[in-house]
């Protein structure tokens, strides 16, 4: 008796859940966990830039640096490929914001050269260390600079997360490493359409 009751309860709950739920995102849904997109940094042309430059666009925010040997290049290239898969008229609705946390080496000109190599929808921004710390703290991540070697080269440790914001600037998804280009493209298109 009890088992039958429990079984029917479970089944009805499953049905209800199935009716109400939107299809799952491929990325991790982080809606409401973080504040909306907001920053004050320096753009690729050396001028100040804020989130207003990306009004009504889907933004994928990513912290990194151009000398990054392993994490940044594949992440940027996967994001660029995903955007290339979108229908042509939607591509400019999606922007990648590459925040360099290595302002010492990543001058605006150098950043521009680097992001242009990956694609048109990728914008590099950087700033003074306190400005960058503020943004990193806002999105609960951090970065640190390693000791320079004899040639002055150093590594920068930074988070691997890609934060995706919808057109209204609200945080929606965190892209994961193991997401394929197709999965990434499908999430970005859904956000651009909504």
């Amino acid at each position, binding site marked *: 008796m009890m088992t039958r009751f429990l079984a029917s309860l479970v089944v009805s709950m499953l049905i209800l859940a199935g009716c109400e739920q939107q299809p799952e995102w491929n990325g991790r849904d982080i809606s409401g966990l973080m504040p909306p997109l907001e920053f004050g940094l320096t753009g690729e042309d050396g001028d100040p830039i804020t989130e207003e430059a990306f009004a009504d666009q889907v933004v994928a925010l990513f912290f990194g640096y151009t000398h990054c040997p392993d994490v940044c290049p594949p992440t940027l290239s996967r994001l660029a490929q995903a955007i290339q898969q979108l229908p042509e008229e939607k591509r400019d609705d999606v922007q990648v914001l590459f925040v360099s946390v290595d302002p010492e080496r990543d001058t605006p000109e150098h950043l521009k050269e680097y992001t242009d190599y990956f694609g048109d929808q990728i914008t590099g921004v950087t700033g003074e260390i306190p400005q960058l710390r503020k943004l990193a*703290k806002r999105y609960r991540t*951090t970065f640190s600079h390693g000791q320079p070697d004899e040639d002055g080269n150093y590594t920068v*440790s930074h988070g*691997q*997360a890609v934060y995706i914001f919808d057109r209204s600037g609200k945080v929606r998804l965190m892209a994961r490493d193991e997401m394929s280009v197709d999965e990434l493209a499908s999430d970005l298109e859904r956000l651009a359409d909504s």
Partner: protein
Amino acid sequence: MNTLLEWLLPYTFSPGTVAFFVLAAGWYARGVRRLRAEGRAPSGWRQLSFWLGLLLCYAVLHTRFDYFGQYMFFMHRIQHLVLHHVGAFLIALANPLPAFRSGAPQRFTPDHPLVRALRPLALILQQPAVAALLFVGLVFFWLIPEIHFEAMLSHNRYMLMNWSMFLDGVLFWLLILDPRPPKQTEHMPGHGVRFAMLWATAFPQIILGAWITLGPAELYDVYSVCGRAWPMSPHTDQVLGGVFTWIPPGMMTVLASLLVLRMALRDSEAGSSATAQRRT
């Protein structure tokens, strides 16, 4: 000087945290002063225990330590160790309630609406089974990988996590370390019950700590996703974090067991000498 200031200032300023610690310190200090005037001041070591516990909890919540707690798993575990098992333990060991009662504003009488509203909640939380379940349950809850991930991403959930650990720690140890003989009030668990509470909460936590230490790799990937405070392999971080979940809380349980045992012996001696006196 600058670096010292950097270490002392909070990573994320929280007015609520400042208010809580200022109030707790102020009420306690005033209460001790009033009790002293009445000739029943708490002993020096109890006062020391209170201030040390309060200072430790403040330090892990509202100084640079909090930054490392956010970006290193094992530092996060040390933070919770202090909040739940060490700082809270020291605060409760001080038996601070008489001082608080005496030092709190006079309007908080037993008939004050706020005090009356909180009493049923306090009675529920003081049930031995509820207190024990909450004490070890919160450790498990915040260490569920999904829950942990979101707590580290959201400022509000992060605050909720730390404060729930701190407040629950103080409540639990107040119950365990209450120095009054248990029969004085109806709601106090006896020494045997306290002993059971200690070990019923210690064993699951020991298993959890061992599992984190020796178990599957990258249980808590949020620290890789968000970046670590300094370069350390995820494996080392997890092993250290597991050890801090496993060993020191167990040691605190042993220490608390000895204290409970001592209280039980003291009470039974007092009881038998009272009987002996009646006989003569």
